[in-house]
Structure formats: structure tokens, C-alpha cells
């Protein structure tokens, strides 16, 4: 008699667990857009974040750009002056789209072999075009393992909260310059956020596909140890 009751209870429990799992799975769903599920309303954007080129007009800049905060500086500077910048305000280095059109989420866009020429110029032109920096071009890609720390890192992910805001993980972002590699991801490959490193944030309009992405990443080691890269990408998202 008691054995039968226990069997009944187990049966009910199994039914509840299976039912809950089915409900959870159906609620998670595809989430639309490009990708994976998660919390309700959250949507992983898997595809190409096309980069609009940076354009300088007077002391203003639009489109995508890069700046570097000097060691010991804050988010408002002082910034490094790039004598090779085409902008009037030479703390801005305008970026232009690479052969892939921009940053791809969900997969890696690695450095070529060799990643730099004999003069130390970065050779990768897939995410963005190499840009001169102190007479030597820097080139940025997404790699695993990370070229500087040699740690395994995931492919970039960007998540839309359904309310216009983007967040993400871009620890694989790395730049080659002058014979050295500088991880410029956020967080860093070890998951830490040293110095002024801040997570990827941004905006997204699902109707137009227009997006902005921003993050800061403090360099750990190398010639620019404790300098912080400020990245601003903007353009249009294309779901894969």
C-alpha cells in the first residue's frame, strides 16, 4: 500500500519536472532576431555589425573611431595624440570597415599569418582597415587564444535587451602593432576588468538596424601598459 503511494508521488514529481521543462523551453524560444535565447526580452544578436567609417569635420568626428587614454588618465583624458590621425583633434583615430564589413558576432575573425609585416605594421584588414599610429599601422581582430595572454576566449557576443540597449562580451578583441599584441577586449581574457576597462554597451534600433557599440579596455603589459583604448563602433547590424 505504502509502496504504491510512493510510486504515485514519484510519478507526479516526474510529470511536474517534465512539464516545467517543456514550459521553460517554449518560453525561451528563439527570441527572434539572430540568435540564442536567455531571459525573456533578451536577444542575442548574431551577425555582422557593419562599421560606418569615421569622418572628421572640424574638431568633430562621426562614425567609428578609436582613442587612447594615457596611463594614469581618466575617461575624459588626457588622450594620446596620434600624429598620423587625419582628424583635426588628433586624439581621434577614424576607423574604416574591413573586408568583412565590420565585427561579426558568434565567430572569430583572426589575424592573418604573419599578423605583422617586417616594419611591424598590422596586416589584418577583416574587421577594420589597419590605421597608422605613430607611423606604424595597427590592425585589430578577434582571436582565440588571445594573441597577448594566450588564453582561450569566446567569440564576441552582443545582446539586445529589447528596449534599445546593447551589452556584450568582446574579450577576443586584439590589436597588432609594432611587433606586439595588445588585447583590447572587455572584459579581459581572464574575465577581469583592470583599470578603466568597462563592458560593451550600446544602442540598437531593430527597425533601422542602426547600432552603436562602445567599450574601454586598459592595456595590460607591453609598451602601452596601463593606457586605455576607447572604442566606438557604429553602423548597421545585419543578422546572419
Amino acid at each position, binding site marked *: 500500500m505504502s509502496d504504491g503511494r510512493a510510486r504515485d508521488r514519484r510519478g507526479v514529481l516526474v510529470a511536474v519536472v517534465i512539464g516545467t521543462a517543456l514550459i521553460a523551453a517554449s518560453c525561451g524560444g528563439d527570441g527572434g532576431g539572430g540568435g540564442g535565447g536567455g531571459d525573456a526580452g533578451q536577444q542575442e544578436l548574431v551577425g555582422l555589425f557593419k562599421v560606418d567609417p569615421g569622418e572628421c569635420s572640424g574638431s568633430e568626428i562621426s562614425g567609428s573611431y578609436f582613442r587612447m587614454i*594615457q*596611463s*594614469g588618465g581618466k575617461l575624459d583624458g588626457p588622450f*594620446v*595624440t*596620434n*600624429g*598620423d*590621425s587625419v582628424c583635426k583633434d*588628433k586624439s581621434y583615430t577614424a576607423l574604416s570597415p574591413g573586408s568583412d564589413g565590420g565585427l561579426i558576432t558568434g565567430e572569430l575573425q583572426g589575424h592573418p599569418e604573419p599578423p605583422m609585416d617586417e*616594419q*611591424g605594421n598590422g596586416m589584418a584588414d577583416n574587421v577594420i582597415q589597419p590605421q597608422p599610429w*605613430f*607611423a*606604424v599601422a595597427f590592425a585589430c581582430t578577434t582571436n582565440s587564444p588571445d594573441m597577448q595572454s594566450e588564453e582561450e576566449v569566446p567569440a564576441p557576443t552582443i545582446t539586445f535587451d529589447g528596449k534599445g540597449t546593447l551589452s556584450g562580451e568582446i574579450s577576443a578583441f586584439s590589436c597588432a*602593432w*609594432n*611587433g*606586439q599584441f595588445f588585447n583590447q577586449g572587455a572584459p579581459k581574457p581572464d574575465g577581469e576588468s583592470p583599470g578603466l576597462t568597462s563592458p560593451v554597451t550600446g544602442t540598437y534600433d531593430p527597425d533601422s538596424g542602426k547600432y552603436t557599440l562602445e567599450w574601454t579596455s586598459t592595456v595590460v*603589459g*607591453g*609598451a*602601452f*601598459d*596601463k*593606457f586605455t583604448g576607447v572604442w566606438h563602433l557604429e553602423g548597421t547590424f545585419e543578422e546572419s
Partner: protein
Amino acid sequence: MRRRLVSAILLLGIGLIAAPAVFQMFSRAPKGGEMINEFRPFMEASKVEQFQDYMAQIDSAHSETSEKLPAFASDNAGMDGETFDTEFPSTAAFNDQWPAIFKDMNDGMLVTMEEMVDNFAAVDALPPFPLFPFFFVAPGIMISLLAWSALQADKKGTSTRSRLKLLALLGIGLIAAPAIFQMFGRAPKGAEMINEFRSLMTEEKLARVQGYFLVLGAAEGELRNSVEPALGLSGSQLGSDFPALAGFHLDWGKISGDMAPMIGAMADNIDNYEAVDALPPFTLFPWFFVIPGVMVAALALAASARGPGLSGKEAFAAALPPPADATGAFFAGLKAKAEGNRASRAQSTEDVPPRQESETR
């Protein structure tokens, strides 16, 4: 007394095993090895000379940008000095800051590096840093095991002679090791290098050198991209009127390509340097082997002199008289004693009654 001496050897062995842990050598020594590896490309006379050539080249360019170029701007573009500085702030910063940069880099940092090239080579010729802790641990383990084994043997009354002999040899080995690795010559050079680098291997110094790089790089870019086009300087005119500046442009990629990794090596090794600097002074390192070596050898020899423990054979041999005495009276005595024993055994046999049947059954 002998046991106390051997116990002291055991303690010395344990001390050797513990020393690397006490001085955190397991974590610090590999950092020293990493620093040596990363400094190697820059601590060569030819490399330092190359950097000095770069400094001289930039110094010549500075003479032109700070004197001839403003005059050229005034003559050809009607630009006075103040306007020049306002229009071209990176060039102005270079003109202003270079003398101090040159003094610090050329007369300070590079001179120190030049003076320490031989010291670095001496340190680099030492056995690999990560092995350092094991140079203490390995003999420490051997000494401890032998001493412990000698104590056990002594307790059982067996021979300790061979163990004490090995301990004395180990002590001599420890004394000899620094001489074999030429540590008496190399370690003080390492100590001197560590002292000289103390002012270079700091966050403040790194930030200053990084700043120098920014001043140079920004000026080179501004001169090339803004100043010279604004003043209408063609490539050929630049080459003829400002040859040092033209050379600066031409070689900046190489200068930057050599300078950036050197700054990177500084940045990446500040913590490694601090770890090495926190070790006991290099000058003392040979004595960390010699002193325990002398003590182990002396204690082992002293313990041997106190009389080694005897095995059964050795005890029998020791009871025998010296060979010179084992003749004549000694053997006559033994013979008489043996005859006496035989007589007394014969007498006792006669006194015993015959055995009964039941007793033999």
C-alpha cells in the same frame, strides 16, 4: 655526543630544504628567469649602442626642428615662434622637452644599461633561475636522509661510518658548488645590476619613458603630416635643408619598432624585478652554499672522530689484540685455557651417572 653532532647535520639539511620556501624562492626565482629572458635582447652592447645612435639621431633632428625650422617658418610662412608653437603643439612639446628626455634616456638609462651589459651576461651565465630553489632542496634532502639514517644506525648499534663519510662529501660538494658555477664572480655582478636597475624598474620611470615615446611619436607624425606640408617643404628640400629631420622620418619606424618592445619589456618585468629584488642579496648566495657545506662537513668529520658505531664483525675485530701481540704468550695462554676447559669437561663427564632406558626414550 656523536648523536648530537649528527642531529645538528639533520637540522642543517632541514634548513636547506626550508630555505627556498622561507625566501619565497619557488615563486620569485622563476620570475627572475623570466626577466632575464625578456631583457636578453636589449642587454647587448650592440643594442645599447644602437639606441645611443637613435638618441644622437633624434638630437640632431631636434637641433633642426627647434632652431632652423621655426626660422624657416618665419621666413617662408610669416609664422612667428608663438604661432608656430600654437599651430604645432606636438612639435613644440618635442622642442621643449627633448633636452630633458635626452639627458634622462641617453645619459641616464642607456649609460646604466651599457655599464650593466657585462653584469647581465654574468647573471645570464648562472644556472637557470627556476632551478635555484632546487639547489638548496636537493642537497638538503640528501643530507637530511643520510643524517636521519645515521641516527637510526647508531641507535641499532650498526656502523655509521659510510653515512658520515657521504655527509662529509656532500658538505664538500656544497662548498665547491659556488666555485664550480663561478658564483663568487657572477653573484656580486648580479647584485650590482639589481641595484643599478632599481631606479629604472619602477612604475614612475615606466610612465615617464612611455611619455617620452608619446612626445617623440606625436612630433614625428605632426612634422611629417602637418608642419612640413604647411610650410611647403618638399621631400627634396627637406633632404637638403633638414637632413637630420629627413633621417628621423626615414628611421622613425625602426626607432619606434625597437623602442616600443624595450618599453614593453620594462612594463612586463617590473613585478619580476621586484620579486628578484626581494630575494636575499645576490652577493650572499655563494655563502648560502659554503657556510652550510662547511658546517655539514665539519660536523660529519667530528662525528666520525668520536668513534663510529660498530657492526658485529667490527666488534669482534676490535676485541682481538693487535697482530703484533697475537703470538707467543697470547697463544700459549689460549692453549692453556683450552686445556683447562677440556679437563674440566672430562671431570664433569665422569661424575654424571649412566642414563636410564626411560630417560633416553
